């Protein structure tokens, strides 16, 4: 019987699969028992009410999607009074995801969640830092560290830093988050992308640019997960293009402790459940008693192999 449990700092999850923030909501409970998930990560909310971007908010790409939702938010009270109680019906740890316009805002909102019943807070730092010429917090190591530090000062809850992939050196950002006290990293949010309709000559999402998500993004994010895992001691949660157990295993081999699935849940809502079944089958086939043994288990080519120079 495979032990699927994983530890993210002081939190033990029953298994390494959870949804990416913004890709699971109440409607999924109509499809399968959410108690099967390792954790439930909820959509990013802000303290203030927001409508989000104008539609069209989605465009289909090859093996991927372009999304430009913005951060629609019903505010903190709704989250505490409606959202959390809904998910507490399941035996699954809840992870909140928050965003704010300023470092102080992140801290203040984190404080409000301390007694909410969530087990951790994901800091969505891919949003613009309005106090610093609009550059996203997650593109600036100093801002990243400050946000995490402010949140850690404001709450006893573990803080997961959700990194932006739109940077030149993600290891620098990873270390900054760790220095700020992050208990884990989520690598990563969506890469900034664009698509134009060649018949209308207009952008395919109203916001001009959006995030590209789905299987096409996996190889780039895989490299980032590896770089993050090499750079820090805290757990790294892989997020980008996970569609099945093979992807989850690959991320874990690269250094991830757990994974998040986003877009694939739109294509195949039962995909996370199937992933767990297939992950178990893989571990049984390979005689792996604990799935956590996969984390960082990638083996480099030996000098002998390289000398044989990769002939098949």
């Amino acid at each position, binding site marked *: 019987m495979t032990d699927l449990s994983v530890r993210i700092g002081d939190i033990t999850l029953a298994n390494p699969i959870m949804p990416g923030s913004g890709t699971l909501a109440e409607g*999924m409970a109509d499809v399968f028992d959410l108690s099967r998930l390792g954790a439930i990560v909820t959509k990013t909310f802000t303290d203030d009410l927001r409508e989000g971007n104008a539609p069209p908010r989605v465009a289909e790409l090859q093996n991927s999607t372009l999304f430009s939702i913005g951060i629609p938010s019903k505010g903190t009270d709704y989250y505490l009074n409606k959202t959390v109680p809904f998910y507490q019906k399941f035996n699954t740890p809840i992870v909140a995801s928050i965003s704010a316009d300023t470092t102080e805002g992140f801290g203040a909102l984190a404080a409000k969640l301390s007694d909410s019943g969530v087990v951790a807070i994901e800091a969505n730092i891919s949003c613009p830092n309005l106090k610093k010429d609009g550059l996203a917090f997650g593109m600036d190591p100093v801002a990243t560290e400050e946000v995490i530090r402010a949140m850690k000062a404001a709450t006893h809850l573990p803080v997961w830093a959700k990194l932006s992939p739109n940077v030149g050196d993600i290891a620098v950002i990873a270390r900054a988050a760790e220095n700020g006290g992050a208990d884990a990293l989520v690598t990563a949010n969506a890469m900034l992308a664009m698509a134009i309709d060649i018949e209308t000559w207009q952008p395919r999402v109203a916001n001009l640019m959006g995030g590209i998500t789905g299987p096409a993004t996996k190889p780039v994010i895989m490299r980032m997960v590896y770089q993050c895992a090499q750079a820090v001691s805290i757990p790294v949660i892989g997020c980008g293009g996970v569609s099945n157990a093979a992807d989850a295993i690959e991320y874990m081999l690269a250094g991830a402790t757990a994974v998040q699935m986003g877009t694939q849940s739109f294509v195949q809502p039962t995909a996370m459940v199937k992933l767990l079944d297939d992950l178990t089958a893989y571990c049984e086939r390979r005689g792996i008693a604990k799935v956590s043994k996969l984390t960082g288990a990638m083996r480099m080519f030996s000098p002998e192999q390289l000398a044989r120079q990769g002939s098949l």
Partner: protein
Amino acid sequence: MSLCAVKPDEAGAGDSFPVAENLCTIVSNDWVNEEYRLLIVDAPAIALAAKAGQFFHLMCPPDGESGNFLRRPMSIHRIDREQGQLHFLYKVQGSGTRGLATLGQGDTLDALGPVGQGFTLPRGTQHVVMIGRGVGLATLAPLAQEAVAAGAKVTAILSARMASLLMAEDALRSDGAEVVIVTDDVGNSDTTSLEALLRRVHADRPIDFVATCGSKRLTRLLQDFSTEFGIAGQVALEQRMGCALGMCFACVMPFRNTAADGTRTVGYRRVCWDGPVFNLEETVL
């Protein structure tokens, strides 16, 4: 969909959930005219629980070389619980629907659903008038079935460019609806003519529920008409979708909200989760 669909005593049991990736077997998938095909499938029980106005999110086979990554939303056109079948009426428009068109008898259709808020006929409704144009007729047809079954008279006004492009005419009649046809050809499908027609119908037999789908012009007409006469009404809308389950927030459109104190605001709602059927007076066009 109910937020409490998970029955506590059946938690974990695979088939107690109201929404599923239903694997349906194709019975037929034939052209009904130049642009539209009728897809008939054998469907499992979960799928057959669908109501008029609800839809499914269909996995579409590849169209030649390009795969179809996201599913495509399609309304229920007919729910035939006797035969255990569902009908979809779809326009072959782009890559997804071209892929759908390749499915043949015996093939499998993965249909996620049923999802969405369907039409809500107020109790005791006497006379339903539905106006549909183009593939909007596909979505309205099951409402005619349900309304007749609930004891209402149904008048279905079908609009098209020309009579040969009409669809669902015969099915509506055999379901018990009175069908009125208006076409651009004949020149009686314009807003003025339709408004006059509605007034005559209402005078003849009071309308207490209106429904439409597929045309902003017709929706606006019905909004004005229903406001003037205080008639309940709904419209089935469309928007680009990611998940069809209320999770991704891609499918929003603006709607009028009235607060408890009467203040009116406009805000986004999800067409897949709060709709696709909405009350006429809340719909912003």
